[in-house]
Structures are given as structure tokens and as C-alpha cells.
């Protein structure tokens, strides 16, 4: 058995040696190969010319991945541009760019340092109020239902922002009061609220007063207002003094006019 295997291996070795021997006899000249190679490659160049570009090694997954990155980058670019534009122009809630405005707000809130967050929440809460009023102004019979839904959403967002402010500042006690004027509110009630808050508006405090109209919204953060009580009192005093001056002027005017009338009568 061992002899047989040895014989087989020997035959194989001999066969290989024969091949090598014969190959070497029929081997092409090195010069021929060296000269023929550029001729052959020249034929390739002649046929394809400069049109050939070394292909970039990419497989299907790579290609899809590259496209995906490209698309995502493009979308991010568009979204960032639209959000900056929407934020700067303060588009209303019905604008198609409104989601970008909200996106920008969220990014700002995420990136803002802790001490600046409250200011931002206040700024955005104020925006919601403006948007609600802008929405109410555009209300008609046709779109009343749609506006109602939008308004509810905006109100919800507004409340969230206020709650965030409270969370940020650890406010306690009385919560934010949202007074909404609806069809049932009497004119007197509206006036009362307005008068109550008028001086606060002058203090430039956390109070947003809106123009007359259906769905008028008032926001008063009583907790925070107390911090500015002194300032408000001062404003109140100035206002009352101004009122006194005005009243005096009016009374003087009245006196003057009555005097003039008396003079006229005397003259007559």
C-alpha cells in the first residue's frame, strides 16, 4: 500500500517535471511579453480612450447608505433654513412653516442654559397668545371648527410653557390664571379684568393683554407679579398722579370755560 502511494506521488512529480521541461522549451521570450503588454494596453486605451474612470469600490449597501446620508443632510439643511426663517418672521399657526418655528423653539429650549430657559418659556408663551389672537381674528363661519382645534392646541402648548416656567422657578401657591373672554362674558367683566391689569401692563410684567375680539386671552402670573409689586405701586402712583393732573386740568378747563361763559353773560 505504502509502495503504491509512493509510486503515485513519484509519477505525479515526474509528470510535473515533464510539464515544466516542455513549458520551458515553448516559453515566450521575455522581450516579446514586455513589448506586447503595452501594445495590448494601448489597444484598450484606443478603444476606451479617456472615457474610462477607475470605478470607486462601492457595494449596494454603501450606495444606499451614501444616498441616505445625502438625503438626510439635504433635509437637515432645508429644515434648519426654514426653521430660522419661520422663527425670525414669527409666522402664524396657519403657515406651512409653523412646524419649523416650533422646531426652532424646541432646539433653542434644548440648547439654552438653565438660567435662560425661563425667559425663553415666557417668550414662547407670549407667542402662543399672539398666535391665538391672530387665529381668532381670522375666524370665519367656514373655518370655525378648524380654528377651534388649532386654538385648543395652542392653548395647550401655552399652558405647558407656563407650567415649565413654574417648574423652573419652583413657584408655589397660586397658579397661572388664564382668563378667557367668551361669548357669555359681559362687557363689564371684560372691563374689570382690563382695569385690573392695565397698570401691570405698564409695568411690563408677566402679563399679556390682547386686543378686543372674540376669544380674547389674558394671562397673569400672580406669583411673579408680587416680585414687582413695588415697581407696580410706583407706576400706579405715577398713573394716579397723572390722572390727578389730568383731572385738575379738566377741572381747570371746566372752570375756565364756566368763567368764560360768565364773562360772556356779563358782556351780553
Amino acid at each position, binding site marked *: 500500500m505504502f509502495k503504491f502511494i509512493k509510486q503515485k506521488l513519484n509519477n505525479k512529480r515526474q*509528470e510535473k517535471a*515533464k*510539464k*515544466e*521541461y*516542455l*513549458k*520551458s*522549451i*515553448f*516559453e*515566450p*521570450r521575455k522581450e*516579446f*511579453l514586455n513589448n*506586447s*503588454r503595452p*501594445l*495590448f*494596453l494601448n*489597444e*484598450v*486605451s484606443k*478603444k*476606451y*480612450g479617456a*472615457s*474610462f474612470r*477607475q*470605478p470607486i469600490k462601492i457595494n449596494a449597501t454603501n450606495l444606499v447608505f451614501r444616498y441616505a446620508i445625502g438625503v438626510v443632510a439635504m433635509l437637515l439643511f432645508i429644515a434648519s433654513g426654514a426653521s430660522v426663517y419661520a422663527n425670525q418672521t414669527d409666522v402664524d399657526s396657519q403657515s406651512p412653516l409653523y412646524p419649523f418655528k416650533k422646531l426652532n423653539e424646541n432646539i433653542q429650549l434644548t440648547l439654552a442654559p438653565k438660567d435662560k430657559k425661563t425667559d425663553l418659556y415666557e417668550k414662547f408663551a407670549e407667542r402662543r397668545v399672539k398666535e391665538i389672537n391672530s387665529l381668532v381674528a381670522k375666524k370665519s363661519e367656514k373655518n370655525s371648527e378648524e380654528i377651534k382645534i388649532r386654538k385648543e392646541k395652542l392653548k395647550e402648548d401655552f399652558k405647558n410653557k407656563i407650567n415649565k416656567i413654574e417648574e423652573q422657578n419652583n413657584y408655589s401657591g397660586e397658579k397661572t390664571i388664564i382668563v378667557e373672554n367668551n361669548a357669555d362674558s359681559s362687557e363689564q367683566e371684560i372691563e374689570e379684568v382690563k382695569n385690573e391689569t392695565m397698570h401691570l401692563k405698564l409695568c411690563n410684567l408677566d402679563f399679556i393683554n390682547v386686543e378686543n375680539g372674540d376669544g380674547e386671552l389674558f394671562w397673569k402670573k400672580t406669583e411673579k407679579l408680587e416680585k414687582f409689586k413695588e415697581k407696580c405701586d410706583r407706576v400706579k402712583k405715577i398713573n394716579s398722579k397723572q390722572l390727578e393732573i389730568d383731572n385738575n386740568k379738566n377741572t381747570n378747563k371746566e372752570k375756565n370755560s364756566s368763567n368764560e361763559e360768565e364773562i360772556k353773560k356779563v358782556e351780553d
Partner: protein
Amino acid sequence: MKDLNFSNDKFNKLAEKLKSGDKKSGEEIFNYFSPLIYRFIMARVLNRGVAEDLTQDVFVKVVSKIESFNENQGNFSGWVWQITKNSLIDYYRDKKETIFTDMPEGMENMFKAKDVIISRVKIREVMETVKNFEESDRELFSLYYLSDLPYKEISKITGKTEGSLRVAIHRLSKKIRGIFK
């Protein structure tokens, strides 16, 4: 065996790249096939100059016809061998007969096998033996001994079964026995 390193898949990929004008793939194809094709042709025409011309002609045809290669219809190696065979057929048709010329002076110095210089007389003896082969034997001799192709490849090129090829090679080996004495 070279075919172990160069699988049919690799040849097919190289061919696909050559189709788009990739010179690197062309160079790889040339480096692998040129000695095999030359030996194959040389064993048939027994003339160095003719073998060189025909080898170059084969590669020109490979470039010009590469678009017609379809890997679904066969592997690239088989396609190249078919072009080589057709080139030889064209050559014989034009020349009608094979001209055997003497080895040029100093040629013996070019042939070396394991550091053994083969004498001019020995080369002439081998050439004479091959010259006396029948056409089918000469083809088999060049494919099996000179191009070192496996039975499977030779079977594809010649259209004969592997079994019949083994028998034919066995007979052929007896015929060339004298060369190695």
C-alpha cells in the same frame, strides 16, 4: 496550478472590468494568458515569429470582442481559448500549411528548466516530435503540457469528455516518452 489562484469567477470579474476599459484588469488578463496562449500556438505552428504574431492577434481580438463575452454563456477562460483556436484556424486557412523554421541562433540560451540549459539539439528534437503529432494530439499536447490546464478546462475547450481526455493524454505521454530519455 495557476487555475487554483485564478478562478473562473475572478476571470469573469476581470472581463467585466475590461469591458469598461479598466487597464489594470487588462494587464492581469494579459499576464496570465499570454504565456499560455503563446505556448499553445507555438506548439501548433512551431514557429516563434508566427506564434508571437498570433498571440498578439489573439489579445487584439480579446479587446475588440470583449463586449460579446457573456458570462452566462460560459466562462472567460473558455472564451479566450475559443478566440485562440479560431485565430489558429484563420491562420491555417490563410497559409494552408504550417511552416516549420529552424530555431534562431542563440535561442537555446533562452530556454532554461531548473537551471539546466536545454541544448539546441534537444529543442529541435522536441519540435520534430510535436511536428509529427496529429492535429488533435498537438492541441492536447499544448493544452495539457504547455498551458497546464486541468482536464475540466481542456474538456470545455475541446468538447471531449474528461474520461476520453485521460485516455488520450495517456497515449500522448507514451509518444513523448522518447523526449525525456
